[in-house]
């Protein structure tokens, strides 16, 4: 059996390259793979496109990634958190791109990529500023926007437990975008609180089958928003 477990944080993320599009899981803090983001920061890649619902949470490494100048474009639904002065300054200076996507559309665009579909029609955002430049299609008298797939070169996700095949389960509202992003990337890297032996996960309970997971790194439990000293991130 392939070994999807990476003992080091560096080994988990090292394939990420300059210019990559990276899907990062989480809704606010729960489910955000902060340790993997630490590892990504250590790589100091440039020109990254980051897809994340809430990019600017005060304590999140994504804010630090932006400060480090690693990010050339953000795709998100909540882009304007009060704390995100760095992002705002870069954006106002034209140094970082921004694509605002309604949250349900954001999730569905990634699922569409994962499901091998070419697009979908949604009633969300019809007639709004976020419909500008988008094709509309009328079906049975209702107007819809045609939305296109959103695929990642990589996904960084967070889960509760993994087995050696990379089958994953999540905890509570930390599930959120993670199973969808796992489907939607060419290479999916999970940080997990614990790993368990093969057959320890009930196949009926598995939320993300291992076919969607390329690598995982075990982090143990950590308190969200507290300083960490994990793996090579060392801060």
């Amino acid at each position, binding site marked *: 059996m392939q070994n999807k477990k990476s003992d080091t944080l560096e080994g988990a993320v090292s394939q990420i390259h300059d210019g990559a599009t990276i899907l990062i899981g989480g809704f606010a803090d729960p489910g955000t793979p902060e340790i993997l983001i630490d590892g990504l920061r250590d790589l100091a890649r440039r020109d990254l496109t980051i897809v994340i619902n809430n990019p600017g949470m005060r304590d999140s490494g994504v804010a630090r990634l932006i400060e480090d100048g690693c990010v050339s474009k953000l795709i998100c639904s909540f882009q304007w958190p009060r704390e995100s002065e760095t992002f705002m300054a870069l954006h106002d200076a034209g140094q970082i791109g921004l694509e605002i996507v309604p*949250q349900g559309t954001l999730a569905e665009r990634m699922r569409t990529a994962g499901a091998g579909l070419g697009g979908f029609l949604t009633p969300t955002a019809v007639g709004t500023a976020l419909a500008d430049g988008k094709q509309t299609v009328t079906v049975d008298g209702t107007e819809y926007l045609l939305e296109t797939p959103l695929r990642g070169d990589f996904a960084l996700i967070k889960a509760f437990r993994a087995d050696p095949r990379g089958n994953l389960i999540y905890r509570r509202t930390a599930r959120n975008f993670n199973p969808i992003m796992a489907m939607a990337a060419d290479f999916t890297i999970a940080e997990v609180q614990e790993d368990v032996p093969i057959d320890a996960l009930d196949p009926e309970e598995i939320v993300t089958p291992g076919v969607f997971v390329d690598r995982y790194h075990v982090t143990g439990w950590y308190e969200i928003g507290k300083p960490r000293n994990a793996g090579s991130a060392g801060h």
Partner: protein
Amino acid sequence: MSEQTNLLTRQQIAARAAQDMEDGWLVNLGIGMPTMIPAFIPSGCDVMFHSENGLIGMGPPPAEGEADQDLISAGKELVTMVSGGAYVHHTDSFAIARGGRLDCAVLGAFQVAANGDLCNWRLPNQTSGSVGGAMDIAAGSKRVFVMMTHTARDGAAKIVAERTYPLTAMKVVTKIFTDMAVISVTPNGFVLDEVAPGLTADDVQAVTDAPLNMDAVGTIDVAA
């Protein structure tokens, strides 16, 4: 206009909106004032709350020492789950919202137009706003209730004939609960259902930039 003291408190608005929640409903609550509604749902009225971040059956904040950092609301506050709840991922959560399984969404608003247009995601003078799940939820919910102060802080009307703010969703608002009134949005425009105790229909009309039908105006029950 009557005395400022005749305006309902936030709790009173929430209590009034709670009266319209029906047994068996699944309801999504926007950030801010709407999150005060659950405390006013009478026991025996079974309303389940949906949170866009994949939580069906959102319960009250956790008791001291029982918080779980992985269990939060869409407003990013620590919450609990009620009996019989379930967790789903984000696309299933929005399938629920967009697919018409929400009996009601209660949202805040900057402006509501007479045709039901909802504006709540961006101010006109901002270059950008945080849209979150508002557009999906507003577009997909069976009913959209708005809960807000009747006027903006500068006194400007928020209930208007035609919107001037950036649109969130077209023709979706069905009812408005403010600190002055309860107003229904109908095919014929706004209908003033109830006014706060101590206010008159004319008081409400005076701070509303659209005609209100005043054929049958009651008084908001704040005793509940």
